[in-house]
């Protein structure tokens, strides 16, 4: 054997290797009822700029995000986290915020404590992490309120705070502000921006062009289950290279 198996030469570069990152999708395919929902999707997420996955309704954005999180299995291709298939231990290093927040029927603080416990965070840290996570989204005064009486915006802020509280390596968000008013949307974007600046790698799904421009460092454009473009944000918005992306940016209706 010419080289030792535990030092693969290809990864010996400067690339950051975490427990989840690099998160790599290779040639993903997904079919249901004879329809192709995702077709040959390649995507590589590494420590770095915030990735926005954009595309019209029904493009397959939510399915792709759930595949990346290991929540559903692809019919073709593979998803790997740091070179291995997703598993239940390392998923604790991944945060996920759904379009509609899924809150436990408990107090706001108990929702956070549940996530911290599940992620294996030592109990001694719960109090401090809960307090700061809530303060970060301005929910500190609602710590003892039942989570499910909160307004829609507050619920999503809580879902975001809960996903961030254990300190995930990567945060996946599926149109988290699609149902929210501009004020709540701004608060969510603000918190997402600070998490990004603090070093959390984020994949953010949206079909809102303005939001994509505000947040994206890189844009992946998905159309009918295919990636038509994957480019740095500035390039993407100035000179989209694919016809569906150009049409979307100009506000033309996509075929």
């Amino acid at each position, binding site marked *: 054997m010419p080289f030792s198996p535990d030092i693969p030469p290809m990864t010996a570069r400067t690339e950051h290797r975490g427990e989840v990152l690099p998160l790599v999708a290779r040639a993903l395919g997904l079919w249901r009822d004879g329809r192709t929902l995702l077709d040959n999707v390649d995507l590589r997420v590494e420590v770095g700029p915030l990735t926005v996955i954009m595309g019209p309704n029904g493009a397959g954005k939510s399915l792709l995000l759930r595949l990346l999180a290991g929540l559903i299995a692809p019919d073709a291709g593979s998803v790997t986290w740091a070179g291995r298939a997703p598993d239940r231990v390392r998923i*604790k290093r991944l945060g*996920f915020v759904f379009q509609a927040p899924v809150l436990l*029927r408990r107090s706001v603080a108990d929702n956070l404590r*549940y996530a911290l416990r599940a992620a294996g965070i030592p109990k001694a840290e719960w109090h401090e992490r809960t307090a700061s996570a809530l303060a970060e989204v301005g929910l500190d005064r609602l710590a003892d309120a039942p989570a499910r009486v909160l307004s829609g915006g507050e619920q999503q802020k809580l879902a975001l705070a809960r996903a961030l509280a254990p300190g995930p390596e990567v945060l996946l968000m599926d149109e988290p502000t699609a149902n929210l008013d501009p004020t709540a949307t701004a608060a969510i974007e603000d918190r997402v921006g600070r998490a990004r600046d603090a070093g959390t790698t984020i994949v953010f799904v949206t079909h809102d062009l303005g939001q994509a421009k505000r947040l994206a460092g890189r844009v992946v454009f998905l159309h009918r289950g295919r990636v038509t473009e994957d480019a740095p944000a500035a390039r993407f918005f100035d000179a989209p290279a694919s016809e569906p992306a150009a049409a979307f940016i100009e506000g033309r209706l996509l075929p």
Partner: protein
Amino acid sequence: MQDLSGAFAEAFRLLLDLDADLMEIVGLSLRVSLTAVVAAALIALPLGAALAVTRFPGRGAVLVTLNALMGLPPVVVGLVVYLALSRAGPLGPLGLLYTPEAMILAQMLLVIPIVAAVTRQTVEDLRAEYDEQLRVFGVGPMGMVATLLWEGRFSLLTALLAGFGRAVAEVGAVIIVGGNINHVTRVMTTAIALETSKGNLALALGLGIILLLIAVAVNAAVMTVRRTPRHAVLA
């Protein structure tokens, strides 16, 4: 025929005096039915949760059977338990026939289908809502079931109350397996049946009033669980 208003007056006197015989009967009733509900919960909660999260051939038939068993006639349960506990039956050597334990066993069998069916439905509904979120938290199958049971606690509490209501009010099963023996297995319902047939309406009425109060209290508890604003958003 005893004078009816006299019987009522006597019944209230027994209640207000906390008549010893009456209290003994009420105490045994509560002990038997509460124990039966707790024992039923220990079996039915895990059983219902397991049915909610597993898929196996014949599951549909099991669910239909479980739902049908909710309406099981108490006398039939009494008969089955009687046969099992009778000297020639499989559990005969335990010598449980005509003991409070036999009554607990019979009532437990009456309550299990109710609690198991509600648990199955509740956990299955909640799972549809929480499955992906809990998996993203890295929660395993056992943790998932425990979480869903807790999330469904108000529905499950309602089912347990309904089970208690059914147990404490039934007469068919306990009279067969308990035998209505004075100071041993005489509970409210069997005592009412006996005293009425003997024409001792005062004791029967006194017990009937207590049974009614218990039924009202159970229903009030169910409504409180369902209606409290805080719980409404939790349910």
